[in-house]
Each structure stands twice: as structure tokens, then as C-alpha cells.
């Protein structure tokens, strides 16, 4: 019983490096994205300098083929990326977690049917599924891309939720809670969701990164948001023709994309370390 006295002081949570870096990268992106709602360095739609200018004090990342400031395009692209990532994960999480929980509680037959359906959906490449949905909607828009990616993510989230929830539901504390009269919904809200959340949240961040990349791919292929909306994927596609004369046009959106995706993954990693009280012991 001596170990008790030691446990009076909870182990100090080590300040996580990945959390700090992740917060910085994602935070920068969020701040920039919000800023673009009120102010951009230049008018994003009209030329503000010569064509394909190299980076200078006036135009930090140069200008594009039409003479528009490139930095302006990229910061607006940050907004697009955040909207797509957040929207797709929100749709994917709400549909996915609901389906997963239902499947975990369902009878054997229904559970098998749901599991098989999810496997088929997941076997379908996300991008192909997204292209189908975008192509099926009347016009390519940001929202059809978000919906398509959200649906693809929901299948992945649902499968993960189902497995995690099933594992939690087998635990004695669920039975103990049930014997003390907690309702079905009460068990889900009080025990299942908190216990699967650490793993789920990491997956959400991962899916966020993948959604951002997928949207860039869709835009690159011309299936994303139509031209006035700047998107990193479309910037990359437009810079393709001039990659030798103005390489910065291809490098800059690429770096922005990678920074956001890595930042999101690091953030998730850090959050998991901080959020799970049982992890303090293993350190």
C-alpha cells in the first residue's frame, strides 16, 4: 500500500514537443485563414504586378501568370483547406461515429451486414468516390467536394468506431454500469465515447490531413472549387506549366499543404498524450 502515497501527486504531464509544433503550424493556418476574411495583401482577382515576377519585397512569393499576387492566393488557399478539412471531418465523424456505435450494439446479423458494407465502401478509393460524387452533382463546387470526402471518411470512422466500441463494451465496468441501471444511451455517452475518444481524435486529425490532400488532388484535376476560389491544388496545377521559369509557384503551395497536414498530425499526437490520464503511468 506504499505506492498510494506516491500517487497523491499526479505525474506531471510532460510538455509535449509534438503538441507545440502541431499547435504552431495549425494555429498559424487558422489565424491566416481568419485574417483573409477581412484583409488580404492584394486583390486576389486582379493583377497587381508583372507576370511571373520573382519573389520581392512587394510580392513575397512573386506573382502568377496573370500578374496576381501569389501570397494572396496561398493565404486564401489556407482558408479553403481548413474549410474542406473541418467540413469533411465533421460530416465523416457525425455519420461514422453514429453508425459505428449502432453497429457495435446491433445484433449479430445486422452487425455483419454493416461491417461488410463498410468494408466495401472502404475498398473503394476515396478519391474515386469523391470524383463520382462531384461528377454526379450539377456543378463542381467546394461543398460537393466536402460532402464527397465526408462520406468517404465516414466509412473509415465507422469501422474504427465499431471495433473500438466493441472492445469497450466487453469490459466489466460496462456491465457494472448496466447492472446499476444505466441506460443504453447513458453507457454510450458516459463510458463508450470517452474511452474511444483518444483513438478516434487521432484518427480524425489523420483524416483531416487526408481530406486536405484529397481536396488538393480534386482541384488539381479540375474537380474542386471553380476558379475564383483559390485552392492549393489548383495553384499547383496552374504552376505546372511554368515550373521551370517560376519554380516558387509550385513550391510555395506545396510547402503550405505539407505544413498543415504535418501540423495536424503532430497536434493529434500531442493531444492524445495529454488527454489520456492512464498514459502518465507508463512514462
Amino acid at each position, binding site marked *: 500500500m506504499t505506492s498510494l502515497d506516491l*500517487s497523491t501527486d499526479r505525474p506531471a504531464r510532460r510538455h509535449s514537443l509534438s503538441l507545440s509544433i502541431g499547435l504552431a503550424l495549425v494555429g498559424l493556418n487558422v489565424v491566416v485563414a481568419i485574417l483573409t476574411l477581412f484583409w488580404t495583401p492584394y486583390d486576389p482577382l486582379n493583377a497587381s504586378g508583372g507576370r511571373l515576377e520573382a519573389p520581392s519585397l512587394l510580392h513575397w512569393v512573386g506573382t502568377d501568370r496573370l500578374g496576381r499576387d501569389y501570397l494572396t492566393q496561398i493565404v486564401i488557399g489556407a482558408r479553403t483547406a481548413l474549410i474542406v478539412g473541418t467540413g469533411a471531418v465533421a460530416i465523416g465523424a457525425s455519420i461514422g461515429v453514429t453508425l459505428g456505435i449502432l453497429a457495435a450494439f446491433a445484433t*449479430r446479423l445486422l452487425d455483419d451486414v454493416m461491417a461488410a458494407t463498410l468494408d466495401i465502401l472502404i475498398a473503394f478509393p476515396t478519391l474515386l468516390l469523391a470524383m463520382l460524387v462531384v461528377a454526379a452533382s450539377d456543378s463542381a463546387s467546394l461543398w460537393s467536394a466536402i460532402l464527397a470526402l465526408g462520406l468517404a471518411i465516414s466509412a473509415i470512422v465507422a469501422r474504427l468506431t465499431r471495433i473500438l466500441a466493441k472492445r469497450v463494451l466487453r469490459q466489466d465496468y460496462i456491465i457494472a454500469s448496466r447492472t*446499476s*441501471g444505466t441506460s443504453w444511451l447513458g453507457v454510450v455517452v458516459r463510458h463508450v465515447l470517452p474511452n474511444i475518444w483518444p483513438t478516434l481524435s487521432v484518427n480524425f486529425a489523420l483524416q483531416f490531413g487526408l481530406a486536405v490532400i484529397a481536396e488538393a488532388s480534386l482541384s488539381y484535376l479540375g474537380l474542386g472549387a471553380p476558379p475564383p476560389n483559390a485552392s492549393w491544388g489548383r495553384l499547383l496545377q496552374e504552376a505546372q506549366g511554368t515550373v521551370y521559369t517560376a519554380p516558387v509557384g509550385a513550391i510555395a503551395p506545396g510547402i503550405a499543404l505539407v505544413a498543415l497536414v504535418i501540423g495536424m498530425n503532430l497536434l493529434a499526437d500531442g493531444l492524445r498524450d495529454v488527454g489520456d490520464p492512464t498514459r502518465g503511468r507508463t512514462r
Partner: protein
Amino acid sequence: MSALLSVQGLTVRAGGKTLVSNLSFSIGSGERMGLIGESGSGKSMTAMAVTGLLPANISVTGSIVLDGEEVVGAQDKHLNRLRGVATAVVFQEPLTALDPLMKIGKQIAEPVRRRLAREMGQAPRVAVDREVLDLLDKVALPQPQRIANAYPHEVSGGQRQRVAIAMALACRPKLLIADEPTTALDVTTQAEILKLLDGLVRETGMALLFISHDLPVVAEVVQRVMVLRDGIALEEGAVVDVFANPSHDYTQTLVDAARMFDEALGRTG
């Protein structure tokens, strides 16, 4: 006086195998009964059947009347009202019996809140908190305030089991089901937990269904005992009679084994 729990012809089947067959027994209120038998003899299955918490792929037939209500075939919604009021369970493994991500005080507060809401129509926070600390104190945990604020992994195994007992008591059940509550604990802690359970059951006057494979442990806390093997009841009677004059060879074997073990350890009686 009608029995608190009355089991008639209980049969539990899973995947073509019969786990418990034609089991009948009853427990009056305040009575302490033991179910003994080796692993796989159907003890825990019987307990789970009583709470109506067996998975859907396990079929239960017969009749289980708990506090005047039929459990077999009852709707979950209906059982929810019964659970907690009529029964609560203490499990074998104290580590998995508590939610690892919820503070201990919060876990105990949940059944307390539900009971207060049921009894008085409201559950003020202050009353719930006081009750939680009272319960922790009742199961002889030192510094209840600190334990209430700790996560399950931060306290010892024996303390976790005390917390699990406090959670079960929080419901003020008429029947406490203890499913091998001391098996996962070391011998000293075992004795402490047994003493605690025994004291609490006598003090609150609730009935006890004690499940174990450990004869000396069972003999210490219950009045009546039933011996199970392969889901079949071999014999039933007062502890003293069953252990002193076993009428079945299997019970004799169990008693002999326990005695030999005791002699090997140099313990008496």
C-alpha cells in the same frame, strides 16, 4: 415471506452447448448464499442471467423472479428499472470493473444520483458529493476526498475492489451479487475485502449471492451453499452440513482438496 430471488428451471445455452441446466434455487431477503464450483461450472452464467445481462446469442429459459419481477424474456427498458434497485454486482477483476478514464468519485456519483433522483425526485450536487464520500468511508478507504479525485489506475488493486463495492452499495440493492470478488487479490487483501463485505452485508441487511471456487472463503461469508458442476446443481444446504457431511462425491473432493491445501500451508480448519 416470498423470496427476493427465485430461480426455477434455469437453463442457459450457447452455441448448442448447455452451460447451465435446470437450476433452481431461491434467496430470501437478507439471506447470504454461495454458489461454488470450478471454472466453467456455470456460476457466473447464472449470476449474469439473474441481472438479465447475458449477450443476445446466449439463450436463457426457465424463470427468474427478482423482487417480484420476471427477468427472463423481459424488455431491456423494464430491466433497467429493476437493475440497481434490486441488484448490483461486484466483479472478479477490479481493474476492468472501473472505467479507466473517469475519476472514481464521478463513477460512484452516477448510481448515487440515480438513486437520490428516484427516492427524492431530485439529486442536489451537495447531497450526491456527501453520499459519495460517505460510501468511500464506509468501505474503509483512507482519505476519501483524495480517492474520489483519483483515477482508477492511481490506486491499488485492493482499493479498486473497495471502490467497486462502494459503487455496488451506492445503489442500495436488495441483492448484492459478488462474482469471485477476492480471486484477483492477494491473500491479505482477500481477508480484508471478505471482512468488509461480510460486515456491510450484515449491517445493511441486503441479501448476498456469493460466487467462488474457494471453499474456505465461501464458508466464511454465507449461510447456505449450492455446489455446481458442469451447469448442474449437485447439492444444496447449510454451509455447515454441506462441508461437514458432503452427500456427493464431487463435494467431498472439493472439501478434501481444500483441507489438503490448508494442511500443506499449515493452516487449521
